[in-house]
């Protein structure tokens, strides 16, 4: 069979458009339902556009979820900041101040990435209870900070490996100590590394559900992912509010990505392209 490059291209585009539509369908339902009024929501009309745009769903969702939305921010901002800063320090030490045994400790830290969340829940809860952080946002912050260390350490170590070691040596000859070198020389050039880590950690912690539901048992302390599930009442589900809530919950990671995204690729590619 003879196919021209042009025909190939058209086929390719058709396939891509079909897939794109397929993936966008749930998003369409999400938006369409969120903008309907409660009376208009029904399974039979779920594919229809709303007849009148209604803010009812959003108002309801905001009213119920606002405290939890704030909880999520109280959780995600410190947890991201701590895990990023600690990961950066770890990465600095593991890339520039190799010590006896560092080649053993580093893989052990990385191993933390592969421990499934479920397997550590019982000891985690016991531990948080004994340090009086169970059922609290600080407890979640601590958990996510520690659980984030393997990946943040790895990202920063890779990033700092690209920085010539001579720069660090020059600083130590110039008179800077280990921390001084980090603060005055490494930290100021770490922005791309931080962007990658912040996007990664922010998104992961924001979307995380299991730790959140296990560690925070009282509704007032739960982050939005847990509250969103609880929003669906036991009798009737207000689908418009539910969908609006889901949109609200999804918004912050999207905003972070839009704000920092242009640094994201640059950060991931740092070093692979010399420039």
């Amino acid at each position, binding site marked *: 069979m003879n196919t021209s490059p042009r025909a190939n291209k058209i086929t390719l585009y058709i396939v891509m458009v079909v897939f794109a539509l397929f993936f966008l369908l749930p998003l369409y339902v999400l938006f369409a339902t969120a903008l309907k009024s409660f009376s208009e929501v029904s399974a039979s009309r779920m594919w229809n556009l709303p007849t009148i745009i209604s803010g009812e769903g959003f108002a309801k969702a905001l009213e119920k979820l606002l405290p939890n939305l704030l909880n999520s921010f109280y959780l995600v901002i410190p947890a991201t900041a701590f895990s990023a800063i600690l990961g950066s320090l770890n990465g600095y030490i593991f890339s520039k101040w190799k010590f006896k045994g560092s080649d053993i400790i580093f893989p052990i830290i990385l191993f933390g990435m592969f421990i499934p969340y479920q397997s550590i829940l019982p000891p985690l809860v016991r531990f948080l209870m004994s340090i009086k952080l169970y059922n609290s946002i600080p407890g979640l912050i601590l958990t996510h900070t520690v659980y984030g260390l393997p990946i943040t350490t790895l990202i920063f170590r890779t990033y700092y490996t690209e920085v010539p070691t*001579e720069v660090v*040596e*020059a600083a*130590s*000859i*110039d008179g*800077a100590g280990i921390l001084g070198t980090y603060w005055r020389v490494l930290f*100021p050039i770490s922005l791309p590394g931080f962007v990658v880590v912040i996007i990664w950690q922010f998104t992961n912690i924001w979307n995380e559900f299991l730790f959140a539901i296990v560690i925070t048992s009282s509704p007032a302390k739960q982050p939005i992912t847990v509250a969103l599930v609880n929003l669906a009442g036991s009798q009737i589900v207000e689908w418009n509010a539910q969908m609006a809530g889901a949109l609200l919950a999804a918004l912050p990671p999207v905003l972070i990505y839009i704000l920092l995204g242009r640094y994201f690729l640059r950060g991931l590619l740092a070093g692979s392209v010399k420039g």
Partner: protein
Amino acid sequence: MAEVRLKDVNKTFGKVVAVKDFNLDIGDGEFIILVGPSGCGKTTTLRSIAGLEEVTAGEIYIGDRLVNDVPPKNRDIAMVFQNYALYPHMNVYKNMSFGLRLRKVPRPEIDKIVRRTADLLGIGELLDRKPKELSGGQRQRVALGRAIVRDPHVFLFDEPLSNLDAKLRITMRAELLDLHQRLKTTAIYVTHDQLEAMTMGDRIVVMNEGLIQQVDTPQKVYDHPINRYVAGFIGSPSMNFLPCTIVKGNGDLYAACKSYKLRIPQDKTKSLRDYIGKEAILGIRPEHIDTKDTITRKYDPESVFQASVWVIEPLGSEKLVHIKSEERILVARLDPHVDLKPGQMAEFIVKTDFIHIFDKETEKTIF
């Protein structure tokens, strides 16, 4: 300014011996060069002096002070790296003043020192620029400036010119020498480039496989290499080596190769007494081979050999002629106007006053 003394310094990385039994006294204000092929231990030695490597055994003194356990920042040294190692986020002024700021030198004084040094190096106009906005040569000047402002006891240079293009390297070589003549600070300079070693050092230390081969002034190392390794390493093109046998005849000694023999000058025969009848290695520098047409001095008729011309490299100021003799290629540094063609047989003369003989087993120089 200070002397630097290394006593029985050894450095091993696991099982790899990087530096072995290194002993060296460096005089106050001396410009000393550590030269050798890569992996010879020269950079490790320099980094040990800087304190960036801990020595496995031995003592390092800067001035009268034993510095083995002194961290780099307290050794009163400054180092210039091959890749400049500038702080990328700081401008030139901040790069140069970094060490002084850490040492809490008063601001007006820092300002004075940095500006004076920048002017000395011709980078006074660039103080506000970031490293990425500078050319390679300018970056290296900033790295130099960063070392100079500290006014250290010792400068350590780790192949500082290797990343520069050939032309700039020659300019910077002269500038570095001029700077050293003005500042008179002890300098230890590592390079793999024997030309840099020859042109810059008060004394050069030739290293190989972690061992010091020879320490002396460049001319002495060139004229009297201590062994075959040094003879071959110093000088470009390299010395020619030929297997030969020492033979006696008519009261003279000869270095006999397969098809010809060279008479050894009378004043040198004494040291060869034990080698008569034995094999040895003959060493001839390229400039000590000449042709009958171009030689301007008297020569021994028993220093002539026949060989064919293989290739000719005209360099303008001279011609490097590769000649095939006894299945070996010898290089001769000849007058640029010499009339030779590839493939041609010709007679070549060895200036036997300057030849070297090496022991075949130990490779040590006999003369």
